[in-house]
């Protein structure tokens, strides 16, 4: 599971120094990936991921239980990405799907990337926190500052949009497969 780190590793990072640098190095790829999934802009994603890592480093001593590091750090990352998106709404366009840094070997992943990009930023964040980080709607509500009912509503809309996008793509693939034999 991503971002699952040893408790001792997190505890030692609280004192800063090299241990903290190692922790940030471990968190960085995940922070960038999540930020890019939400922001769709590599430059913005890199900046938001740096901000998230800085926030994590700065607030780590205040984290009460190292066991909650994983969900807590996802909250920080997603919030930073949403904040970055809100600061620069004009950049919330779809990024190029053929970006060299993105390699999907399954059609579902590409379809999801496209479908996710069509969602409002908050819904992207909610979907990632729910399906990827494993947070429930109550935890997402705390993380995003939205009421639980609003989070559930966002999740429902996002889920519906993702399923529709995936179903449409799959239907198109099946249609092609049905047609091809006749062509041959």
């Amino acid at each position, binding site marked *: 599971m*991503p971002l699952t780190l040893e408790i001792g590793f997190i505890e030692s990072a609280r004192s800063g120094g090299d241990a903290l*640098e190692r922790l*940030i*190095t471990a968190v*960085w*790829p*995940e922070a*960038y*990936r*999540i930020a*890019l*999934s939400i922001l769709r802009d*590599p430059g913005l994603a*890199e900046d938001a*991921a*740096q*901000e*998230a*890592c*800085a*926030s*994590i*480093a*700065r*607030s780590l*001593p*205040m*984290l009460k239980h190292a066991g909650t590091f994983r969900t*807590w750090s996802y*909250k*920080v990352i997603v*919030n*930073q990405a949403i904040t970055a998106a809100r600061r620069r709404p004009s950049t919330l366009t779809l990024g190029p799907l053929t970006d060299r*840094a*993105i*390699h*999907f*070997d*399954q059609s*579902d*992943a*590409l*379809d*999801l*990337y496209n479908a*996710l990009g069509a969602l409002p930023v908050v819904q992207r964040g909610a*979907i*990632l926190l729910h*399906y*990827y980080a494993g947070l429930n709607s109550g935890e997402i509500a*705390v*993380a995003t*500052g939205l009421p639980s009912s609003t989070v559930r509503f966002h999740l429902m809309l996002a*889920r519906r949009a*993702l*399923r529709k996008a*995936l*179903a449409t793509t799959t239907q198109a693939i099946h249609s092609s497969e049905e047609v091809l034999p006749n062509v041959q």
Partner: protein
Amino acid sequence: MFSDARIREGLNTMIRGIDAPPVTLHQIQRKILQQKAHPRYTSRYLRLAISVAVIIAMLVIALPSISPALVQTIEARYRAALQALGGIAPPPAPKSLVSTLSSQSRNATLALAQSRVGFTIVPPAGLPKDVVSARIQMTPTGVYSKVTHSWSVGSPSVTFSYRRADGRSFGLMAEPFDPQDGPQPKYMFEADGLASNGQPVLVKHEHFAWRNGSQVMTATQSDGISAPEIKAIQAAMRGIALPRRELHAPNTGTRMKLYLLKP
């Protein structure tokens, strides 16, 4: 229809398919320094009151001397709160300005204070009955101009500090009335540590302002004084309540003030 499991699996694949660039520790380190940690102060005298109006910062420092470093740390808390509220925080006050202001902060008698300010001081009345000691302090003020984008030394204010029988304390500030200051804020905000999402935890305090002639007196509800007690003081002084701005009303002022208070 696609199951939650397939969405979960698809998202996992999608995110794993994104290549992250190399970690830039020096950039992260720079951002850590920029958003430097804001230590929690437990002293009940230490207050950083924040508002989004013209008068936005009030520092009450319970130390024998004011350290520019401490002021800048508290300013950082202020900036965090203001930014969290969507406002634009001024840059840190220069150390030289803080040193200048610090040297001007001193206890005074009412007569001495009156000789140093350009407005007629109307002392507080109707104070809580358990007040056991009082002190008058000259309160230097730093002013940040949103027009010239610079800090300067402002007109001094006068602070009446009171200690109560149970050890609590509170302050009332008197300063010259200036119609250009615009409406006072209804609330002051204090950035009190960080939440789990890395954002500052904002504590809201109701803020009051009333006018007696050329003087404006302000007080902020805190654990030292309640809102009804402040209203009783205002009523006893027969002060005219100044209009207050709601939380999200636009900030039309062109100045921001920073006060240095020493008990």
